[in-house]
């Protein structure tokens, strides 16, 4: 049986606004399957986003959905989660939303270890505004504001999350959609802040400028370039050139979760 996405998608909202070949739709489907796999009640889930193409996702999903201001989704989500710590709070962000203007909320959510799952739709570019470079655009790549090739440097988003104190850090890709389902499930089940950096293809503003002939070519690049972390670790430096690890990259289970710590204090004060 084909998976029934219709269960979760708001009636009348398809087709979505994403461009032909934009891989966001692929990841969107993975997210729905991952939620379904956990058998969660949609009433108990809030899906929050900032601004950008990725951030339009919540509009399609029949959860409690909140489309906020650019970069601030995690801060809104923190308010929701602290108010209702037993609910599930999920955030989707573009790479710009999450790590450019939203970088501060990103690192603080990591530090706080609040039980929110962040999915970064990382297409290496600002899609919504038409293709300016982002903090995850690799050096040498082209963008409307780096017309001569990017001379700025990119974040390694998982490394940033790890340095900031996140307790579950993973990377997936739109190509490896089935593996992604599993990563999202694990991220959501993790008690504490979890981040999945999800590599995506923006054919419209990134692909064309960077010599990808078609959306499919972008997916096939992912197929080649992303290697399970365990296998990646065994590559020689030569073999590793142009390749990136994927899967769960960092995980800590001992650190207390923020809501638990806060409400633990509330309990202590009562007694």
């Amino acid at each position, binding site marked *: 049986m084909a998976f029934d996405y219709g269960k979760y998608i708001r009636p009348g909202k398809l*087709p979505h*606004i*994403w*461009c*032909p070949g*934009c891989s966001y739709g692929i990841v969107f489907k993975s997210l729905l399957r991952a939620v379904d796999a956990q058998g969660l009640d949609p009433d108990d889930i809030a899906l929050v986003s900032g601004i950008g*193409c990725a951030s339009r996702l919540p509009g399609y999903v029949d959860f409690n959905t909140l489309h906020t201001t650019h970069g601030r989704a995690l801060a809104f989500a923190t308010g929701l989660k602290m108010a209702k710590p037993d609910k599930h709070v999920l955030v989707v962000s573009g790479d710009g939303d999450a790590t450019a203007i939203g970088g501060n909320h990103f690192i603080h959510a990591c530090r706080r270890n609040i039980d929110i799952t962040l999915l970064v739709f990382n297409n290496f570019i600002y899609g*919504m505004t*038409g293709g300016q470079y982002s903090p995850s655009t690799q050096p040498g790549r082209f963008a409307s504001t780096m017309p001569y090739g990017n001379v700025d440097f990119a974040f390694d988003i998982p490394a940033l999350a790890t340095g900031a104190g996140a307790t579950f850090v993973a990377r997936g890709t739109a190509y490896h959609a089935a593996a992604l389902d599993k990563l999202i499930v694990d991220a959501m089940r993790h008690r504490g802040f979890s981040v999945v950096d999800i590599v995506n293809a923006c054919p*419209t503003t990134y692909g064309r400028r960077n010599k990808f002939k078609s959306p499919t070519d972008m997916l096939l690049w992912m197929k080649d370039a992303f290697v399970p972390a365990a296998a990646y670790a065994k590559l020689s430096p030569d073999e590793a050139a142009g390749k990136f690890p994927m899967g769960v990259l960092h995980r800590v289970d001992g650190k207390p979760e923020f809501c638990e710590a806060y409400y633990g204090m509330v309990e202590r004060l009562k007694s």
Partner: protein
Amino acid sequence: MSGRYEIRFSGSGGQGLILAGVIFAEAAAIYDGINAVQSQSYGPEARGGASKSEVILSDGAIDFPKATSIDLMLALTQEACAKYCKDVKEGGTLLVDEDFVHDVPAGDYNVIRLPIIRTASEAVGKAFVANIVAIGAIAAITGRVSREAVEKAVLSRVPKGTEELNRKALSAGYELVERRTV
């Protein structure tokens, strides 16, 4: 507003219609010395969805830059046609893609149907030059801008290496109209 002539290019997000408007306006304003302004509008849904680009030509000053009483409107998609054709003026012209626009809302205007996209993909070989085919057709229909100016404008705006392709597309657009008129 003596001789104000309003053109609207409409279709879906990725079809290059803003560029088409720019090229047309540039042909008029820079190469033919006619007053021209170009403007556009699109949704927050910059991606896909109906989009339009407008060019106003005039002998005099052009203050209000938007089309409200359209002399000629191009529609490459059904959605754009339905959404935008109400501003075409009595006696104006509605140019539609004959394969992609089936229901033309009734109105007091002349309807011209041309296989613009088909011509681009089949005769020229690349669907994405449909906008250039459309420019040719519109230039031919309106006769307001010289072919020389249009050609210069096209060639100055298209990516290096695609000049021949675009020249061919432009000619194909002219021909669609000329063949029809003959």
